[in-house]
C-alpha cells in the first residue's frame, strides 16, 4: 500500500497554489476517493493548535497555511506582502458588485448615490474586480464582476459562499426609523 498521506503532504508542501483532490489523485495515481480520505484526516489534524501550520480548503482546492494564532510573528517575516486596507467606499462598492454582478457603473451609482469611479479604479488595481463585458444597452456600458482574487482575499471557497443579501437587510428597528423619517406625510418646517 502506498504511503498516501506522505505523498499528499509533500505535494501540498511544494505547491504554490491550492491543489484539487482530482489533481492530487492524478499525480498519486489513486482514486479521488482515497485522496479525499487523506485530506479529511489532515483537516482533522488541524485541531492541534500547537502545530505551526494547517490545511485549508480554499477556492481551487487545498493548501497549507501558517497557524493563524502565530500571525503576529509571521507578519514580521512577510510584512511586505500584507495588503493595504481598502477604503470604506471601495468596500461598499465591492459588496454591491459581489451581489449584483455583472453590474454597470451607473447601476452602482444608483445604489450608492455617488459615482463609484475612484472606488472602481482602486478595486481594479487590486485585482478584486474585473471587466466582464458590455451591457446590451445604450452606450454599451462596461459590466463589472468579481475577479478570482476576490475569493482568496475574503476567505471564500466560491461565490456561493457569500451569505444571501437578505441576511444583511436592516433590522426592523432601523427600517422603522428610516421609513418613519421619510414616508411620514405632511408637516414640514420652513
Amino acid at each position, binding site marked *: 500500500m502506498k504511503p498516501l498521506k506522505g505523498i499528499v503532504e509533500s505535494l501540498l508542501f511544494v505547491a504554490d497554489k491550492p491543489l484539487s483532490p482530482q489533481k492530487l489523485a492524478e499525480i498519486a495515481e489513486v482514486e479521488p476517493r482515497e485522496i479525499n480520505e487523506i485530506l479529511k484526516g489532515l483537516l482533522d489534524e488541524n485541531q492541534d493548535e500547537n502545530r505551526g501550520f494547517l490545511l485549508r480548503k480554499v477556492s481551487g482546492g487545498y493548501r497549507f497555511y501558517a497557524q493563524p494564532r502565530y500571525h503576529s510573528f509571521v507578519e514580521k517575516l512577510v510584512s511586505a506582502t500584507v495588503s493595504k486596507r481598502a477604503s470604506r467606499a471601495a468596500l461598499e462598492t465591492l459588496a454591491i458588485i459581489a451581489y449584483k454582478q455583472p453590474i454597470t457603473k451607473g447601476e452602482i451609482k444608483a445604489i450608492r448615490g455617488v459615482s463609484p469611479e475612484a472606488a472602481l479604479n482602486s478595486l481594479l488595481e487590486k485585482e478584486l474586480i474585473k471587466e466582464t463585458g458590455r451591457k446590451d444597452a445604450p452606450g454599451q456600458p462596461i459590466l463589472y464582476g468579481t475577479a478570482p482574487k476576490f475569493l482568496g482575499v475574503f476567505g471564500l471557497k466560491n461565490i456561493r459562499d457569500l451569505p444571501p*443579501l437578505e441576511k444583511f*437587510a436592516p433590522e426592523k428597528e432601523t427600517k422603522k426609523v428610516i421609513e418613519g423619517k421619510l414616508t411620514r406625510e405632511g408637516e414640514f*418646517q420652513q
Partner: protein
Amino acid sequence: MGQTDTMSYKIKTEVYEGPFDLLLDLILRKKLDIYEISLAQITADYLDYLREMRALDLEMASEFLLVAATLLEIKVKGLLSEEEEEAEDADFPQTREDLAEKLLEFQKFKNAADFLEEKREIEARFFARQNVLEEKFATHPPDLLADFTVADLAETLTAILAKNSQSQPEYYLPAPSPLNVNKKMDFILKNLARASKNLSVLTKDCQNKGDIIATFLALLELHKQGKIFLKQPQDFGDIKVALKGKLKH
C-alpha cells in the same frame, strides 16, 4: 435650531461617501428628520465652508457641494406637492417612499461591506505557504544546453563547416538587386504543394543574403495572408513550413 448646528458641524468635519451616506447617518445616528433641516442654514454652511476651504481642498469642497445640493433637492421635492413631481432625473429617487427604499437597499450593502471587512480581517491572519520563484529566477530562461553532449557539439560544428564549404564566395553588386518577394511567394507555394518543407530546405538554393531576405519576407507575407503554417518544434531548431491544412507531425 440647536440640532442644525450639530449637523452643520458634522458636515464640515466628516467625509461622507455621497448623499445617501449622509442621509443615513443623519437619520440613524443623529435621529434628525431631514425635513426639519433649514434650507438657509445648509446654504450658509456651504458658503462658510467654501470661504474656509478656498486655499485648501477643492475635492472636499465639491464633495460637500454634492451633498448639500442633494439635501436641498430632497427638501424642495418634499415641499412641492407630489402631483407636480415628474420623473426627470432617473438616477434620483422622486418620492419619500422611493428614497426610503433606496436607503434601505443601501444600508443592506453597507452591512454586506461590514461582513466583508470582518472576513478579510480573519483571512489576513492566514498566511499561505508561498514558494513562488524569486523574480530573478522566474524570468530566467530555461537551460537550453540541458542534455547537450559533446557528441552533439561535434555534430553541430561539422554541419556548420559543411555549410560553409558549399557556399560560394560572397560578392557585392554595385547596386543592390531588387528583392522579388512576389516571385519568392510563388516559389514557396509551389514547393509546399506536395509536402511541408523545412526552412533550411527552402533557403538551400539561395544565392546571396538578398535572396534569403526575400524568402523571409515572402514567408511573413504568406503567414499574414493565412496561407501557411510556421512551426518550430525545438528551440533554435529548424522551422517547419506547411500549407494550411497540410501540416503533419
